[in-house]
């Protein structure tokens, strides 16, 4: 398994501002992902954070809105830019440690953002 720490765990943000969420893993992992969970909804993949190169975004998500950094194999950041109330969600970092069955994916505790 992997221990995943996210910061902040919660924040209340003003409309139009940007917030950066950090994800730290206790071991080196190749695969790291960012998901969004809107209120009362399931999880949706935002992007794959690639170490040393630009993130790969899923349909409906763009780099200008959700810039991602991955400077090494244990750390990544997700920025939510120019926030609006529709961005109020839990943002979750996940990793696939090597050796797990079927690329088992583990999640951090999430960063709960409320935009006012």
């Amino acid at each position: 398994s992997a221990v995943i720490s996210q910061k902040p765990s919660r924040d209340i943000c003003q409309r139009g501002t940007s917030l950066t969420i950090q994800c730290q893993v206790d071991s080196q992992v190749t695969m790291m992902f960012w998901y969004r969970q809107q209120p009362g909804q399931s999880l949706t993949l935002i992007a794959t954070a690639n170490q040393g190169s630009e993130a790969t975004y899923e349909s409906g998500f763009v780099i200008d809105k959700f810039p991602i950094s991955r400077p090494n194999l244990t750390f990544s950041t997700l920025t939510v830019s120019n926030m609006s109330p529709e961005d109020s969600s839990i943002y979750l970092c996940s990793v696939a440690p090597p050796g797990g069955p079927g690329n088992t994916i583990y999640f951090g505790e999430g960063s709960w953002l409320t935009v006012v």
Partner: protein
Amino acid sequence: TQLLEQSPQFLSIQEGENLTVYCNSSSVFSSLQWYRQEPGEGPVLLVTVVTGGEVKKLKRLTFQFGDARKDSSLHITAAQPGDTGLYLCAGARGNTGKLIFGQGTTLQVKP
């Protein structure tokens, strides 16, 4: 298009009852994972199933992966109030690490 249909979406039962949650798809998955999530927290992995027809047990929870690897079920025996939470199934394709989630099942077990 929702590729993984999870049902039921809401379930409220009495302590001691049994229940089954289903995840169905027309697509084949290389593996399927079940998570449990409590309010304000991230999903916690319960099990990963990889082989078609595989059955895994975790105390009172039984997980099954369909023979064709398109569907899965979670059966809880003698549910307890501590089982209350959001149960999520998620399918993986290949070795990309990307997961497709079902809509989730909110389970409430009343004492």
